[in-house]
């Protein structure tokens, strides 16, 4: 990979265990993420990949384990805290605000950066109007970057699936995150759309230095674009390392191909 330099560990998860009632979703998982890298989480369906992302940005609270993000150690994250610290996220089943236009969706992504208070907004004086314009500029940059100018004012509910995924990425990018969690960004896409998405992800990583944690099923894509891969199966970690290391890991091969243990 080109100019970017992979830095220190910025996110360190230790011994994370997560249960829903009696069901164990994650068991004693530890892994770390370095600054500026593309880190992939792979595994069969139900392996606990999405749960892992949910733990990272605080949607789920693990029963055991520690999360260390940029030197701050905690038992659990809270979603809005994660957002304030620069973690943005997309979802497996697109979680856009369906009643709003593309522009409003992406503008919403900047909400933590808008400071005008309630009264200023109601009367539209002072910061309120100014802010709308300033943030609109930033949002338009993101819209340009992801090439969705033409659908700016379309309600997202009317867009095709592939574009919705792109809008969701735009909303996440609008927050100028330092870390981006992508949950199956390419699921359900055709080859061309996948190529576009790959390009966007690599561009984000390259141009803004954004650290990327992604879940993906397409092995070709994962092996191509990620620096390091962690493999989950039945909520346990069975492999961790560079794409080559993982590819040759016996346990991983067994999990994917169903070879008898």
């Amino acid at each position, binding site marked *: 990979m080109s100019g970017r330099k992979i830095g220190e560990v910025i996110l360190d998860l230790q011994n994370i265990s997560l249960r829903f009632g009696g069901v164990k979703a994650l068991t004693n998982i530890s892994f770390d993420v370095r600054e500026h890298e593309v880190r992939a989480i792979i595994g069969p369906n139900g392996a606990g990949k999405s749960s892992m992302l949910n733990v990272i940005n605080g949607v789920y609270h693990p029963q055991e384990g520690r999360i260390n993000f940029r030197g701050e150690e905690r038992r659990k994250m809270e979603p809005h805290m994660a*957002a304030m610290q620069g973690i943005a996220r997309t979802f497996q089943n697109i979680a*856009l*605000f369906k009643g*709003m236009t593309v522009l409003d969706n992406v503008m*919403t992504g900047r*909400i933590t950066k808008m400071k005008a208070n309630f009264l200023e*907004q109601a009367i539209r004086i002072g910061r309120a109007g100014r*802010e709308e314009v300033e943030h609109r500029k930033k949002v338009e940059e993101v819209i340009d970057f992801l090439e969705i100018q033409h659908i700016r004012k379309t309600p997202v509910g009317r867009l095709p699936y592939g574009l919705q995924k792109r809008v969701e990425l735009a*909303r996440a990018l609008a927050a100028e995150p330092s870390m981006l969690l992508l949950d199956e960004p390419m699921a359900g896409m055709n080859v061309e759309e996948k190529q576009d998405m790959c390009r966007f992800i690599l561009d984000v990583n390259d141009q803004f230095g954004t650290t990327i944690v992604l879940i993906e099923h397409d092995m070709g894509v994962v092996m191509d674009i990620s620096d390091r891969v962690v493999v989950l199966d039945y909520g346990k970690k069975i492999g961790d390392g560079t794409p080559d290391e993982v590819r040759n890991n016996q346990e991983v091969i067994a999990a994917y191909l169903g070879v008898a243990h």
Partner: protein
Amino acid sequence: MFYREAGQFKTTYLADQQIFPITQDRIGVLLILAVAFVAVPMLFNEYWIKAILIPFLIFSLAALGLNILTGYAGQLSLGSAAFMAVGAFASYNFMLRVDGMPILIAFVCGGLSAAVVGIAFGLPSLRIKGFYLAVATLAAQFFIVWALTKFGWFSNYSSSGVITAQEMQIFGYKFVTAESKYLLVLSIVVLLALAAKNMVRSSIGRAWMAVRDMDVAAEVIGIRIMHTKLLAFAVSSFYCGVAGALYAYAYIGTVEPEGFNLDLSFKILFMIIIGGVGSIVGAFLGAAFIVLLPIALDVMVQEWLHGIFPPSISSNLQLVVFGGLIIFFLIVEPHGLARLWQIGKQKLRLWPFPH
């Protein structure tokens, strides 16, 4: 033909973010305001102003309040009338107990009192959603009406909680005539509608809609759910509260808590369903519809069905028509009259071409 936006190029984001980006819309709104402020008081007789236009404006305001909560923030409430009651009774008490209280400040205080009560009853929304919340708002409806009736202090110990609104006076000018009351109500409603429009096109409005559409994603983006929902309850209740105060002061004059019953709450809900959930214009269209419909039905029953049915049929007919319309709109046009209005404008934009 004259409704075209061709040639109006926005060269700045500021111009694109105006409240009415299309020039013709701006002219239209100014025209409507001019008619409402100048022509209406001159042209309409007292009956129209008193019995139709004033209640229309007041219900528009209440519907606006409910629409902020239900349409924008997605929290269904069946207790809007109770918050109107809080506004009415609080304003009455501020006027009664504070010497020299200006009426406008009393309205604001009434609205703020409703907002506080609204926040209290909005707290459950942090844990429950959908019709669970709807049922919870029924608690507000019944509890508030009961409390206002049972505790004499609220109505200055009058029998069964009836209050008579004091005279409205601003800088020595007494609002006695129907026209003057109408203008006062109109001014307040226009200002609050403008504020509502500003809110829903700013980050507050986007936060409300985000919570409505997908609360988990909203939280992940960094929206504080609690803050956002409670603000919606507060603003909504404020609007309902001011509407309630106006209802008492500029419309009915003498009100009792029972006047703000569940039926009224439903009526306001019907206004936003018919007018358009999540639309400022919709609140006005819905209020107009619900205010005018019973009158139209009455006339119809008296003129056409005279002698065929007993006059008591009118109230039952009203129930059936109201209910039927709700179902009709939910099925055929869930976005209500506001959507039809938009489609009409869209058509006009392209006219005479079909597409």
